[in-house]
């Protein structure tokens, strides 16, 4: 999917994800040209407790909701959004 250089993206965890990983932010090294869903796989390897939490999770890049196949850039903020429950 990508060339073999790496890039860094800043991942944000909330709610069940935050509790599963024990952190609210994480600097992830991913291959350059990685898509949002590729980062999820990298994160599940790093935090096995995230497994099972994919259902209903949406992605936001730099505070905007995006499709799972969105290509990321160096320095992007990728937020994993579990099912929302405001109000």
């Amino acid at each position: 999917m990508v060339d073999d250089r790496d890039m860094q993206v800043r991942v944000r965890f909330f709610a069940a994800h935050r509790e599963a990983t024990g952190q609210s932010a994480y600097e992830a090294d991913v291959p350059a040209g990685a898509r949002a869903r590729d980062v999820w796989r990298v994160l599940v390897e790093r935090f096995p407790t995230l497994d099972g939490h994919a259902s209903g999770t949406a992605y936001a890049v730099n505070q905007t909701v995006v499709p799972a196949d969105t290509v990321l850039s160096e320095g992007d903020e990728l937020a994993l959004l579990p099912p929302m429950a405001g109000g």
Partner: protein
Amino acid sequence: MKLFALSSTPLDEKGVSALVSGSGSGGVVTFVGRVRDHARGRSVSALEYEAYPEMVEAVFGAIAAEARQRFDVSAIAIHHRLGRLEVGEASVVIAVAAAHRSPAFEACRYAIDELKRRAPIWKKEFGPDGAFWVEERP
């Protein structure tokens, strides 16, 4: 006081309503969401709200801009609470002002529906069976 805000302290319902009330507004419709003592058949003792703050205020602003485009309303304010809330406390206050009541009702309804669908806010429910993150389809 800002039109769109997250707050860690109790929401000021009257203050939010005052934010939108200008001299040309004949009607203000307000929705206040409160922590209920039960939900989905379980009893609830408290809720804990968490948000993605950098994104929430942009989403609130986008929802309000859409509502103003769709309905003839003059101003919308949306405030949401964060942290632990006891039963009866207000979790959200949405106030909409308009010259006429019909668009005010419609825009307020639109705003709360969209907030529940797409504002990056989560809640943990505390009850007799323990605590869990709520996943509800609006």
